[in-house]
């Protein structure tokens, strides 16, 4: 099925669906990990809140397994078996992030090997494309025509880039000065757009937090206001940047990379701003008096972890709703209009083209939100699995019904690598958030598994101190310098050996000389 997508729409679109499938599987396994170590033990030991302690008016969902606040700080010690729920919660979260890191690096490894074998994108490009570009297995006139168009556009794009490079190298002094000053000006303009979007998100979040007591439709609107502003900003700002891009006169390859980098920065910064404003309110930067009693803002947030989890949950849900809404309200009507009323305007607008980079960024953003929120909302990976699953099939439907094949195809191998790289960046951001909340912010006293500790991290030292003396000595030895430095040196040696071995294997692959067979008859 994915081969059909690749044959009809090109390698870039196929790599998007492969990436989406990878994320679905990753989320599913993460959920199984969390369920096994945290949720099921919680259910089994029946250590959950009996009745609602405070009514903050957000409905019954707040008091289910969905959010952090529901879990208890039980430490079961019966018969021959002991299970420490707070420790399990913390270590599961840590292992979850490490597990995701491992999967992403493994995926980057497989795509990197292909990039290394083909020697990068610019060397021997033209001859490779012309001599090896044709796929003899594709049948049918439609597939042949599509392949021919793809090759034509690839050649054209490469030749044009070369011409632009030659032209820019031959500019006069004055023209260069003019071009560079135009580029600097437009760079600051794009920064200004991003800055505007960020201030908008900042104010929206503050406003939403202040008006969190509202009921009804207006209340719902206020609650989802940060999500709405983030989505709108992430839609408008890249569009504006796209309009500016032609004036910068970069070659097409560079333009695409710049557009992507700007879009990535915008997405991750808007998420970071949302978290930053929440953090400011939780640690009450504006009103220090509120925090003196408990170390966090107990007046506004009885259970701040649940609140953060709720924000992430809302972002995820809103993202899914917007995707489906755009599909139904924009893409289907566009196709109906273009197909049934052929005139000059509709032919110029044309059918939707499946924009791979922006779609992948949407996925990376959604996954980063889930990583940030998973600690506060343990069922979020499951929700995300369902969301990506639904997204896979809806995107596939819209691809086949509404989209035309992209004319300028993406270099799928290098872009897979690039997307895994951005995913790593998102993972890093999420880990920062988790480390900060675990190590520094005081856990809520009214809810959650860490309600009796000063920080969440404290659980680990207390548990270690309960172990036997020999185990403690062993663990301290592992952390000391006399062990870690030899370990570091040893792992560097092993890494060098593996890299050398891999290089040797690659070189051998093309040198093997096969036996020839004669012609019959």
């Amino acid at each position: 099925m994915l081969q059909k997508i690749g044959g009809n729409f090109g390698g870039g679109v196929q790599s998007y669906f492969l990436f989406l499938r990878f994320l679905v599987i990753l989320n599913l396994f993460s959920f199984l990990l969390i369920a096994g170590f945290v949720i099921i033990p919680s259910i089994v030991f029946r250590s959950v809140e009996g009745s609602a302690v405070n009514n903050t008016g957000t409905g019954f969902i707040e008091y289910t397994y969905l959010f952090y606040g529901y879990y208890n700080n039980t430490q079961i010690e019966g018969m021959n078996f002991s299970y420490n729920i707070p420790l399990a919660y913390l270590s599961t979260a840590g292992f979850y992030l490490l597990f995701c890191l491992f999967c992403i690096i493994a995926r980057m490894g497989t795509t990197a090997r292909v990039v290394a074998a083909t020697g990068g994108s610019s060397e021997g490009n033209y001859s490779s494309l012309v001599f090896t570009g044709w796929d003899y297995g594709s049948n049918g006139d439609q597939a042949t025509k599509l392949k021919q168009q793809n090759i034509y556009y690839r050649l054209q794009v490469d030749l044009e880039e070369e011409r632009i490079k030659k032209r820019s190298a031959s500019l006069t002094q004055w023209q260069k000065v003019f071009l560079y000053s135009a580029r600097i000006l437009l760079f600051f303009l794009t920064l200004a757009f991003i800055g505007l979007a960020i201030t908008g998100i900042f104010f929206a979040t503050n406003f939403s937090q202040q008006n969190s007591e509202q009921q009804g439709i207006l209340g719902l609107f206020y609650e989802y206001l940060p999500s709405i502003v983030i989505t709108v900003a992430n839609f408008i700002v890249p569009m504006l940047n796209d309009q500016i891009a032609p004036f910068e006169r970069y070659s097409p390859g560079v333009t695409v990379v710049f557009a992507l980098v700007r879009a990535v920065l915008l997405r991750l910064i808007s998420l970071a701003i949302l978290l930053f404003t929440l953090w400011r309110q939780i640690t009450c930067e504006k009103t220090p008096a509120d925090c003196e009693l408990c170390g966090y803002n107990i007046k506004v947030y009885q259970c701040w972890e649940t609140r953060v989890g709720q924000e992430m949950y809302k972002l995820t849900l809103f993202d899914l709703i917007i995707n489906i809404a755009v599909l139904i309200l924009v893409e289907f009507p566009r196709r109906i209009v273009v197909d049934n009323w052929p005139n000059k305007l509709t032919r110029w607008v044309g059918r939707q083209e499946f924009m791979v980079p922006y779609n992948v960024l949407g996925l990376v953003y959604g996954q980063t939100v889930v990583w940030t929120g998973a600690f506060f909302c343990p069922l979020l990976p499951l929700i995300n699995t369902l969301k990506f699953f639904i997204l896979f099939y809806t995107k596939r439907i819209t691809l086949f019904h509404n989209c035309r094949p992209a004319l300028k195809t993406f270099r799928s191998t290098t872009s897979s690598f690039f997307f895994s790289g951005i995913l790593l960046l998102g993972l890093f951001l999420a880990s920062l958030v988790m480390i900060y909340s675990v190590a520094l912010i005081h856990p809520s006293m009214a809810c959650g598994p860490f309600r009796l500790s000063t920080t969440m991290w404290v659980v680990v030292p207390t548990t270690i101190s309960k172990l036997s003396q020999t185990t403690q000595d062993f663990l301290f030895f592992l952390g000391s310098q006399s062990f870690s430095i030899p370990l570091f040196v040893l792992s560097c040696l092993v890494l060098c050996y593996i890299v050398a071995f891999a290089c040797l294997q690659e070189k051998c692959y093309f040198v093997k000389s096969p036996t020839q067979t004669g012609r019959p008859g």
Partner: protein
Amino acid sequence: MGTTASQLGKELLSEYQELTFLTKQEILLAHKRFTELLTKDEKDIPNVRIPMERILTLPELKSNPFRKRICLVFSTSEQKDGSLTFEDFLDLLSAFSDSATLEIKSHYAFRIFDFDDDGTLDFNDLQTLVNCLTGETDETRLTPEEMSQLINNILEESDIDKDGTVNLSEFQHVISRSPDFVSSFKIVL
């Protein structure tokens, strides 16, 4: 020896298996598809030769831009008219099969791209090659300036001895750097 009627003898089958890269099922399937192309009278002739036009009706070759060159390269007829016997047909499928080696495939690819059959790929060969790849319609044809820019780039990258043409070993050198070639140079019935 030759093929008779519609049954393939056991001895013949194992001989073909030894001499080509094809498996037993692939040879039997090839025989079935080949005999489907024969008219009633032709079915009794041993070593029958099917003209090129009929070979090109096969769906696997019909829309391939290199179909005529493929038939010409594998044909053993003295008139060089692209007609194929069953053994030529097996040769064709063997070179395009899954198990054929990189050397065999690159050898035949070179011969297919050598449109004037002079043993090297010169400017005109490359021009015809690029036109086949991009299609002959006006929308997808490169302008003459783009074409010469492209072919100069290709010659610069692959012509190591700088004689203005690409010979077999230079061609194989380019092929060896591409990991997709073996899997894309494949025709399966």
